[in-house]
């Protein structure tokens, strides 16, 4: 069995503001500095960057704040689970609003000069035809990806077991259908675990298209996005697999949700303690 990730380097791991949503953004930046983290995944949600509240001018302001703190944003991920966002849903009003939300997110990503923006397909309702949901999702991705091409941003498709694109096989199929250099994939260890996918098979299936990893723990039946090392997902083994295939992209402990909002920095610290222990000595 492969254990650890002797070739992963500490710089590959990103900080994230996912669990900092009860703090103001400047607190998050200070916290990253305290923890010695300078590369982040930016989670676009209230109160930090809720897209409906932000003008492009305000995004520039945020960018300056980030730059002044010496941070680099490596991936932008607008909230799309808690907020009612879906490109696959039948309801045209919800769908069109969702697409406009992603367009605004892309504009923000361009201002922030982020190389990657993450997206999920969203899902349809019970009783809707899966084929139709798929078609709507594909049309939506096409529209966003076409804009991303012009901006030099790559859209990263994340599968989620509650969505139309629900596992790695679906993600590969969607990438093939859209077939754009501005459209790649990411793996989320929670998706792998809860959808019953095999991690190594998923890494192999995505191949060169694997550009980003959400590296989080979890526990059945319903503990999601927990601090690495606190759940039952074999993360050490996964790190070994990433090594084996020479993964050079970034990984984020995506501590999404409310469970850590009152101990945000501690949760980030514990996460990094675990993930850095998997890395090659002497990095950072």
């Amino acid at each position, binding site marked *: 069995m492969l254990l650890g990730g002797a070739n992963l380097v500490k710089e590959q791991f990103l900080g994230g503001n996912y669990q900092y949503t009860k703090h103001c953004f400047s607190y998050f930046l200070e916290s990253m500095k305290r923890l010695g983290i300078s590369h982040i995944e930016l989670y676009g949600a209230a109160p930090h960057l809720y897209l409906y509240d932000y003008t492009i001018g305000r995004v520039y302001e945020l960018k300056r704040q980030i730059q002044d703190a010496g941070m680099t944003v490596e991936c932008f991920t607008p909230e799309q689970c808690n907020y*009612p966002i879906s490109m696959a*849903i039948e309801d045209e009003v919800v769908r069109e609003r969702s697409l406009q939300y992603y367009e605004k997110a892309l504009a923000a990503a361009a201002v922030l000069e982020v190389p990657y923006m993450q997206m999920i397909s969203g899902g349809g309702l*019970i009783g809707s035809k899966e084929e139709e949901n798929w078609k709507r999702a594909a049309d939506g991705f096409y529209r966003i990806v076409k804009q991303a091409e012009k901006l030099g941003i790559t859209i990263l498709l994340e599968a989620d077991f509650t969505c139309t694109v629900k596992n790695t096989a679906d993600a590969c199929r969607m990438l093939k259908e859209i077939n754009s250099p501005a459209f790649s994939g990411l793996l989320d260890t929670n998706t792998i675990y809860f959808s019953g996918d095999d991690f190594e098979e998923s890494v192999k299936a995505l191949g060169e298209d694997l550009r980003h990893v959400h590296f989080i723990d979890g526990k059945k039946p319903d503990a999601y996005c927990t601090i690495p090392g606190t759940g039952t997902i074999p993360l050490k083994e996964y790190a070994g697999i990433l090594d084996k295939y020479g993964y050079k992209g970034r990984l984020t402990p995506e501590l999404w949700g409310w469970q850590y909002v009152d101990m945000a920095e501690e949760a980030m610290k514990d996460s990094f303690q675990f993930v850095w222990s998997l890395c090659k000595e002497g990095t950072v």
Partner: protein
Amino acid sequence: MRKEQLLGSNYHYTKHPLSYFIDSMKRMGIGHIEFYGASPHMYVDDYTIGQARSVKRMLDAAGIQVECFTSEQCAYPISCSISEPVMRERSLKYYEKALELSYAVGSPIMQMMAGLSLIEDDKKEAWKWAAEGIYRVCKKAETLGMTIILEADPVCTVANAFDIRRMLDELQMPVLKGMLDFNQIYNGKEDFEEAVDVLKEDLYHVHMNDAAPDAFCLIPGHGEIPLMKYFEILDKKGYSRFVSPELWGTRYAMAADEAMEEIIEYFGNYLKEHKAE
């Protein structure tokens, strides 16, 4: 309590179209509901008044009356007590629109919360913003002849029954009332009877749900809240308004009807056991 005091609700029907929920209520013989305003049923920002009226027609045709309208305000970023002025103003506009939608679907009552403040925020300021926000929404409710019920939550500026009491006393508005949520009592480690006593005749609505240390908004009987005891307290105090099962979240989204049926049975059992008294 009486059978009619139990409301149906669409909290856990968000993976179904609204028409499915309405059919389910009809099938279960439920004629009164709490309407949860969230996507895909009635996300406040997506719906026009005209669309809300068409929903009212669907409900009328099914013989269903909306007794309380509750727009989503936890998962969506809504707070009238946060220091961020853009978010606060958007939240207030959201409530004002929600009020118009409530009116259009024929609900006499709309529920709202104070929302949360950031850890760095001044708590006195947060309270002031909450009071100003609630006042503004209540002023609009007055013109529509509607009632606003304030729900507390331990994570919010109005955190418990005492805070509700304080807000009611401060604002002194006849259109503003209070409510209790079993999960709020549980999470805030409040005493239910004391909370009922604190609100007295201002107790206008009850959310009944169970909870466990690692799970909230559960089907009654699935957690560790003594619901039967709470019902007895409500009975003892002569509570005659509605109790509404708030199965918020996605836990029961794939088994929505089963969850609702279990609630009806649970409440029915309470009534059976207490019939003779």
